[in-house]
């Protein structure tokens, strides 16, 4: 197989997802077009991975069908994914909940746009709650990764599959329209070959590949009519989430060592806040940035630790204030936690973020 993994390329975030999926040995992509993420499937259709790695790419009739195709593929122990944007991801909530209940791995990409409703095609981060608080029915959590660059669109696609299989859970890549649409330099991940059926049988003994002779059949289901059995399934899931919360927290700190004030932001907001930190520092204000890479599990311990030595936090989001609730829970009243956000597809500028810091926390 071609080894050009070290080549630096320039591409859109959405395109990087497609390349990374092929390279990490994804078996199947099932999707339905919606702006601003259509380039994911368009790129896959251009690249024709069925001719190289054998990956299946299929345009489904709806987002509902897409996520259920991911369910079917995942039930066979295959690496499967879909991508969509906010309204489409709302339609997928049923399937995501079923996957969580059936303990199936799979990757869902949400390149968010402004809502509610049909909303706008401009970037947004207003699906934070939907992603990290369980947008579908029942008690479940979904590992949620928030890329802030085109490079991370590629890298976190690979990580999302790893987490999905390690914890047998649907996993979300939660990006925003800008990260999907912008072009930056990217070094694509190295090629991994797709798992063979023998490898899947070892790695995923629960997969429905056809029942081997003399063995018990596998059932993929989220149904347990007896409440005690259902509670046990829930307990198993919750135990897994506790491990995830311990083992898989990821974040980036910028200039936090001596910071008096810390921006908390993810995705494009984090990039904006990084510039706001530069502006603040140039004016003698010791600002820093904490950028959660995993939104679930949230970097609670890190924020707790920072809250012992900073004067305040400000969460900057493309929403009416969602992640800020988790920041407040982690800070638990020790220092002020403020919020600045723009909605409906408006992206705050670095100056706006800096001014919000000054107005809300310093003055």
């Amino acid at each position: 197989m071609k080894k050009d993994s070290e080549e630096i390329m320039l591409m859109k975030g959405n395109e990087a997802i497609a390349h990374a999926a092929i390279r990490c040995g994804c078996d199947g992509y099932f999707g339905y077009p919606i702006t601003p993420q259509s380039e994911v499937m368009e790129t896959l259709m251009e690249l024709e991975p069925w001719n190289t790695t054998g990956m299946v790419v299929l345009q489904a009739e709806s987002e509902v069908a897409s996520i259920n195709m991911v369910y079917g593929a995942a039930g066979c122990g295959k690496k499967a994914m879909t991508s969509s944007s906010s309204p489409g991801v709302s339609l997928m909530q049923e399937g995501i909940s079923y996957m969580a209940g059936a303990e199936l791995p799979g990757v869902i990409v949400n390149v968010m746009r402004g809502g509610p409703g049909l909303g706008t095609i401009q970037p947004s981060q207003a699906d934070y709650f939907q992603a990290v608080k369980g947008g579908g029915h029942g008690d479940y959590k979904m590992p949620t990764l928030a890329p802030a660059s085109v490079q991370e669109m590629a890298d976190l696609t690979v990580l999302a599959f790893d987490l999905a299989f390690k914890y047998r859970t649907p996993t979300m890549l939660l990006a925003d329209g800008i990260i999907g649409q912008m072009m930056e330099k990217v070094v694509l991940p190295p090629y991994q070959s797709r798992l063979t059926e023998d490898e899947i049988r070892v790695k995923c003994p629960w997969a429905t590949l056809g029942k081997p002779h003399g063995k018990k059949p596998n059932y993929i289901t989220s149904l347990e009519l007896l409440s005690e059995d259902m509670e046990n399934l829930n307990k198993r899931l919750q135990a897994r989430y506790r491990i995830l919360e311990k083992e898989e927290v990821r974040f980036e700190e910028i200039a936090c060592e001596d910071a008096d004030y810390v921006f908390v932001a993810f995705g494009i907001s984090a990039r904006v806040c990084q510039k706001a930190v530069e502006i603040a520092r140039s004016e003698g204000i010791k600002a820093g940035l904490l950028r959660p890479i995993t939104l679930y599990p949230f970097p609670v311990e890190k924020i707790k630790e920072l809250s012992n030595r900073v004067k305040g936090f400000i969460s900057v989001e493309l929403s009416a204030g969602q992640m800020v609730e988790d920041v407040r829970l982690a800070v638990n009243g020790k220092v002020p936690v403020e919020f600045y956000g723009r909605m409906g597809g408006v992206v705050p500028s670095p100056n706006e973020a800096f001014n919000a810091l000054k107005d809300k926390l310093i003055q």
Partner: protein
Amino acid sequence: MKVTDIVNPANLVYKKNSVLNDLPMHYCPGCSHGVVHKLLGDIIEELDIQEQTIGVAPVGCAVFAYKYLDIDWQQAAHGRAPALATAIKRLLPDRYVFTYQGDGDLAAIGSAETLHACNRGENIVIIYINNGIYGMTGGQMAPTTLLGMKSTTSPKGRMYERDGNPLDMPKLLAGLDGVCYVTRQAVHTVGAVKKCRRAIKKAFEYSALNRGTSIVEVVSTCNSGWKLTPDGANKWMVENMFSQYPLGDIKDTIQTEKK
């Protein structure tokens, strides 16, 4: 000749197939599901494809189908079985993949998934149990409920003006080029059971030819929902359902080519 002389393995002419396991099924007494499950087991045993077959169970009375046939199964969300089956078959193209769906699952909530899987000509088998009613939730109106037929949500009978006409999905799907075989069967008599077994076998064989989707509708009873005895339900089906849903092949592209 004494019974004990006759009941001897050497004289065996009919026994339960080995694919159907020994778990008692949760269906009501006399329910057609049991017969169709048995036929599926017969075919899987006869074709010797137990290790290559993956079933997709619906939501509805047959939600637990996965408990009864000793093969790998996935249980789908309501109506989504054809989407799951699409992905399974695409990723495991040498396997036999079938969905088992009721009329609520296939013809109402899952009509889009059904139509598009068939339009893409997915090489899967769709087993479609049509009893004109929502059985599991207690006898509500289905898309296939007959005009004038009473249900808990059409207590005075289905009215065209309010509820539309009974939806004949197989007839609709037969018009798609992606579909190679559509047949309508029943399991109320010995003859019907035998015909239905042949139809299901054909559907499985066709699915291995990669010529498109095969659909076997089984016009069935729901004696509990219809509030009849099992035998009474069969008679009611013959008298009322068959005129709306006449039995027989609706489409058989491969057979037509042979002629």
